[in-house]
């Protein structure tokens, strides 16, 4: 009996923590549960959420991607540079941004899989290179004056839901479908859980790894497009520290840093916890200095609940 309660808690602990957070916030601040505020939270979460979905693949592969923040910025400036009014149709900047992100991820994956260098080091290198490339490409200045159609991606609504939120939801669905319903998804878990056993089962693990990092890069690129369109400029200094928020979301969501275990669903809850906290603490007028401490504590707490087995 006690055992079952325990199992329930360890499986749904994060969800329960999330619900409690929502209840507390809505009691403390009446504005919290208003439709516009909920949409606000979702929109703010969507960027981190998209990046975190990619990060989930990489962490299940027993890796890590520190470069996503910089890759996001690089993709943002590249996309923005093709998005000036009257130059190209809107799909060109979008493809350019997605391609840039995917390429960075592909290179990460290639080096990690083929040269067998630790993901931490490889992506640390890419983090610096991509940031530098973004600065070089723009001369350090933001790319401004973007076309209306480009700006719509981040600014418009469909059925009063912000487009970034819709994109986020689609990414979540595809990501979790890939992981849980396809052969590729199984191969991701197998490679991260026991690489030797995966190889002996006929899986070409280097391919899985390369694809995994490419997905992370692709989604960082997508997030860069959404973000630059939302703020109507591509800034080379954007996205700093985003990798840490993404990692936090993944880890809060119960994915193991040692690989082989994890879900997109958990990651989403993790990202939402972070989003709700940011928003709620703002509503409560907590100083941004204090917010950082609270955020850190909540991350630790969430992970401690999750690991208490």
């Amino acid at each position: 009996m006690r055992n079952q309660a325990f199992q329930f808690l360890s499986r749904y602990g994060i969800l329960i923590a999330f619900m409690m957070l929502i209840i507390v916030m809505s009691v403390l601040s009446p504005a919290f549960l208003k439709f516009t505020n909920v949409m606000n939270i979702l929109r703010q979460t969507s960027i981190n959420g998209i990046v975190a979905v990619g990060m989930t693949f990489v962490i299940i592969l027993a890796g890590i991607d520190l470069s996503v923040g910089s890759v996001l910025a690089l993709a943002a400036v590249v996309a923005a540079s093709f998005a000036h009014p009257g130059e190209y149709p809107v799909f060109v900047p979008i493809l350019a941004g997605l391609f840039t992100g995917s390429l960075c991820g592909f290179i990460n994956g290639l080096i990690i899989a083929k040269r067998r260098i630790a993901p931490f080091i490889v992506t640390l290198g890419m983090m610096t290179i991509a940031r530098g490339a973004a600065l070089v490409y723009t001369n350090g200045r933001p790319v401004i004056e973007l076309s209306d159609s480009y700006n719509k991606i981040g600014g418009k609504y469909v059925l009063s839901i912000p487009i970034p939120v819709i994109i986020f939801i689609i990414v979540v669905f595809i990501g979790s479908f890939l992981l849980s319903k396809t052969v590729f998804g199984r191969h991701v878990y197998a490679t991260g859980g026991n690489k030797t056993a995966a190889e002996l089962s006929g899986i070409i693990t280097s391919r899985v790894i390369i694809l995994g990092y490419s997905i992370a890069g692709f989604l960082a690129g997508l997030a860069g497009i959404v973000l630059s369109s939302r703020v109507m400029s591509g800034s080379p200094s954007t996205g700093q520290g985003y990798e840490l928020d993404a990692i936090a979301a993944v880890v809060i969501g119960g994915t193991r840093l040692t690989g082989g275990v994890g879900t997109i669903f958990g990651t989403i809850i993790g990202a939402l916890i972070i989003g709700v906290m940011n928003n709620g603490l703002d509503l409560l007028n907590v100083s941004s200095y204090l917010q950082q401490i609270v955020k850190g504590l909540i991350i630790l707490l969430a992970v401690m609940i999750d690991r208490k087995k």
Partner: protein
Amino acid sequence: MNYPDYNSCILEMQGINKSFPGVTALDNVWLKLYRGEIQALIGENGAGKSTLMNILAGIFRYDKGHIILKGKPVEIKNEFHAQQLGIAMVHQELNNFPDMTVAENIFAGREPSNWGILSRYKMNDLVQKILNDFHLDIDPKRLMRKLSISEMQLVEIAKAASCNADILIMDEPTSAISMRDAEFLFKILNSLKERGVSVIYISHKMDEVFRISDSITILRDGKLISTSRASETNYDELIKKMVGREPKELFPLRSVVPGVTVLNINHLSRGKAFKDISLYLRKGEVLGLAGLVGSGRTEIVESIFGFPPAEQGIIEVMGKQVEITSPRKAIGNGIALVPEDRKLSGLHLLASVLFNITLPTLQAFARKSGIIKQRKEKSSAVQISQQLNVRTNNLKQAVENLSGGNQQKIVIAKWLLAQPRILLLDEPTRGIDIGAKSEIYQLMNKLTEKGISILMVSSEMNELMGMCDRIIALRSGQISKEFNHSEFDQEKILAAIMP
């Protein structure tokens, strides 16, 4: 003093109960251990042997019961506490620090020091003495990962034995070591016994059990069946109590007449591992590879499977030369490998039974688009795990929580599902109970009747002689002799593999 001393009871476990979510692992188990006694603990896979000993070693808490140590009731809090109480355990699965030296491993957690500064000199010296005591020829300064599995196991045994424990628990210590190393172990055990150390010894090997133990305790489905003096019972009685029914013949009658050659290997070599290996395997045949640890037996089957590929030589499957550069290529040619070490190379321990069983064959359960047809996948997994009698209450259970023997069955199941033409088995029955062993032998026989060919590596001579049509003896990476069925003779085969 002549041990065992039946007047001095050192340990009593009284009415121990333990359940995990969904299973009762132990149900009112009683156990008594005397000073200087070697007590064998036997039972089928999943009977609760490891669980009972993990409780004694402080790793699991129990739900109900009492533990009386040297006449005093104790509450064993954790592993460290157990060690302080004089209880040491060698675990079923290897767990060591691969990147530390042998000496560091033996002294992990109790490093000798001067004022807090590690004294490496002293440590290596002490370890050398311990290894000498046990007649082990291993350099204390070698990295653990450089040792063979057999040597690692011996180091762990030496580590436990050097703790000056009163009670030494060994969970299937010989499942991963060669016969010769097992002899070492028995010597160690006898010398410990002379010093009054008590040993609880878990094993599935009955000959061993009769050879070394003073008494034998049997568990079945978490319940205590009996404890008896080894001299007052016999093999058939034990088996009957263990499985709860009359024992079957262990080895099936082989009636398959081998057909055409399906696998032909010519002058295969790889570095220092093996040299100039030529052999053939016929349809429906069981071919055995006999050899000591380090004789190249594992490396040969690994290279046939492309992991890593051989450097020289030719492999022919069904008369056609094939390039096997990766396991994937091997699988494509109808070859499957059940590897030697399930934990390192067979399983994703944190994933479910279902996940592991269908991993190599996923493509068969998927649409072209890569989407898995989950119902079909599940029904195949259910079928194969029933066929192998895997004890699990649900396919979603993490493999990590299965008993060792059941984990082994999962590795076999996953490759049977692949319906290979050529099955490479490296120590297929390691850690498997007698009943399941006989099931696996029956299964091998049935497979060969269907035309599948088997190449089997084994350290167990009776298994090789009972199942194989031919045996190839290996000595330091080369073939030393080949035996046809009519020439099988334990002495002669042993002579051919000894250096």
